């Protein structure tokens, strides 16, 4: 296969980052990618009168994707709950979930169709896709099949490749030796990287922003706000507004109990709804942030024992997602798989990315609350002082787009002569070729 020129690659590499909630996509020429929700609406149970208004090509596919398009048809579908499909759970689509794969196919068609090309020299996109590090082999094959089908219709794809999201983040951050800690809504992936992702070192935790939301919800219920706690938006807003990551949970709770006035808070959700964290619940603000970093505390026990919060191990493919493992242990466990010779270099650059690490420290509470970077440093210090002294921790510059940016840089750099290899999971899958 002939190599394509650098100038061609600088125009026609197309990055797609398939996140559980949002898909970020667009050609390398964009400063920031376009974003669309990772979901599709099946046009089932549509009344005959509404069917007549739907364009025939949309109706024949039976499915719409795209934020605007889904909103347009929401009112036409009788049972939205049943027909709205979020294809990825923790970044994974189940092999036998036909609806999920239909949505992913439609989504891929949709994102590529947003960028039509009229250039006579255009030979097709070089599509570089970022998937969860936990994605099993069948997902790689599934995405290549999808692009084959799309290209058979439109001849718009030249070749495709896939890279794990932690590697994409490392590329975007220009870090060749590092530990990427990607904290998503459903899980946290810890991936050591030394000139490539070290798959054996991948440690996944079965918790993330969702568990912080669950604690927030339980606290709201205990405070008597059970009615509004049903809305995910309310829970997310309250979490962002009042959730705190404690410097040390014990001391922080003791301080909040002895001097609760300092820790009370109010959240105005709308002109008519305001939530007040009363004195007797002020200490619970620290539980919201702590659960992401370390759920092994007595304070969480009562919630877990009553089955109000679930923290348990899960298995995806051949990867175990640990429920209760704290983040410091996860990072250390991940580093153990790295050659001793380079461990120091890798450990010196711990990069946090994802929404689960977005925590603020309100003015006046610096003594008790910290941000994610500080928290990881403190936790590592408690487990291993020597290691903590060598570790450098930082947050990514663009939490939302770094995986997409890494994907387009990877697509630009990866030589076309390197064919897709199922074992190494590297190289280009030539569309319409024999690989």
């Amino acid at each position, binding site marked *: 296969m002939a190599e394509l020129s650098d*100038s061609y690659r*600088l125009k026609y590499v197309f990055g797609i980052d398939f996140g559980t909630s949002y898909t970020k996509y667009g050609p390398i020429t964009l400063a920031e990618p376009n974003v669309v929700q990772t979901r599709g609406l099946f046009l089932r149970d549509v009344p005959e009168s509404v069917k007549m208004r739907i364009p025939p090509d949309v109706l024949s596919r039976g499915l719409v994707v795209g934020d605007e398009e889904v909103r347009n048809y929401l009112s036409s579908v009788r049972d939205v709950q049943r027909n709205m499909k979020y294809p990825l759970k923790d970044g994974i689509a189940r092999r036998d979930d036909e609806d999920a794969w239909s949505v992913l196919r439609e989504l891929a068609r949709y994102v590529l169709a947003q960028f039509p090309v009229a250039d006579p020299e255009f030979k097709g996109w070089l599509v570089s896709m970022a998937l969860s590090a936990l994605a099993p082999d069948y997902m790689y094959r599934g995405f290549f099949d999808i692009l084959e089908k799309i290209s058979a219709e439109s001849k718009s794809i030249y070749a495709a490749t896939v890279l794990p999201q932690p590697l994409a983040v490392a*590329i975007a951050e220009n870090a*060749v030796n590092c530990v990427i800690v990607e904290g998503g809504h459903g899980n946290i992936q810890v991936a050591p990287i030394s000139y490539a992702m070290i798959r054996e070192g991948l440690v996944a935790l079965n918790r993330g922003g969702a568990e912080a939301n669950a604690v927030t919800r339980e606290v709201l219920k205990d405070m008597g706000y059970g009615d509004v706690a049903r809305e995910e938006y309310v829970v997310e807003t309250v979490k962002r507004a009042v959730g705190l990551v404690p410097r040390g949970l014990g001391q922080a709770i003791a301080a909040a109990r002895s001097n609760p006035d300092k820790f009370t808070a109010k959240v105005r959700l709308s002109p008519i709804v305001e939530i007040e964290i009363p004195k007797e619940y002020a200490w619970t603000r620290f539980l919201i942030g702590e659960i992401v970093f370390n759920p092994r505390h007595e304070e969480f026990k009562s919630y877990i024992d009553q089955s109000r919060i679930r923290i348990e191990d899960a298995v995806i493919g051949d990867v175990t997602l640990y429920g209760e493992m704290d983040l410091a242990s996860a990072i250390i466990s991940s580093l153990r798989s790295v050659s001793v010779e380079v461990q120091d270099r890798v450990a010196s650059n711990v990069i946090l990315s994802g929404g689960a690490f977005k925590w603020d420290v309100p003015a006046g509470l610096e003594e008790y609350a910290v941000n994610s970077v500080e928290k990881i440093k403190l936790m590592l210090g408690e487990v291993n002082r020597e290691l903590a002294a060598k570790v450098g921790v930082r947050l990514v510059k663009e939490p939302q787009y770094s995986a997409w940016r890494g994907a387009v*840089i990877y697509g630009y*750099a*990866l*030589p*076309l002569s*390197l064919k897709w290899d199922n074992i190494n999971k590297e190289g280009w899958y030539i569309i319409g070729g024999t690989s």
Partner: protein
Amino acid sequence: MELARYLLIRYLTEVLGFKLESERGDDLALLDGANRVSVKAYFADIYEEAEIYKKINELLQQDCDKAYIALAKDALPLVDPKHLKALGVGLISVDPSRGLEGVELRMPARARPRPAQQVDLSKILGAVNAAVAEAVSRESKRIEEEVFKKLKSYVDKALEDVRRELAAGKAEQRTEQRGPPSIAENEWVKLIRRRG
């Protein structure tokens, strides 16, 4: 005949309560409240039927709310009451020999729409023409301004596009030589390229 006229005026003003406004020839103009009443007082020694109808016709031309014709009692057989009723013109008979009592309202007048005023078509046409001309000139000015604005924005946009394309072309040339800074300086690029 002057006596008959005198009795008629007294009857109209004292018995019916009208207010005398003016007298001109055999025409009396009176006011009944806000309504204008015209009375044609036609008294003659010898009546001619044709003359009576001529007078009635004159009455109809007048601008008033109610119209009466007043005749001497002798003339009554010459008037067709049905005709008067159809026209809505009232009839008053005067018998001077009986004094004020000799004045009788034989048929009441019907209130009628005032005869349309004489319309000066040329004036109206002139006014219409002037209004239309003004509206047309105002509208044409507006359209002219709008077209000018649109053209200006199209031209500006086209110029801007051309400028942007030129700038992009230059940027692309630079990129082709070195690649965007974030890519060119990225260690991963060199690393991945070596894998080929």
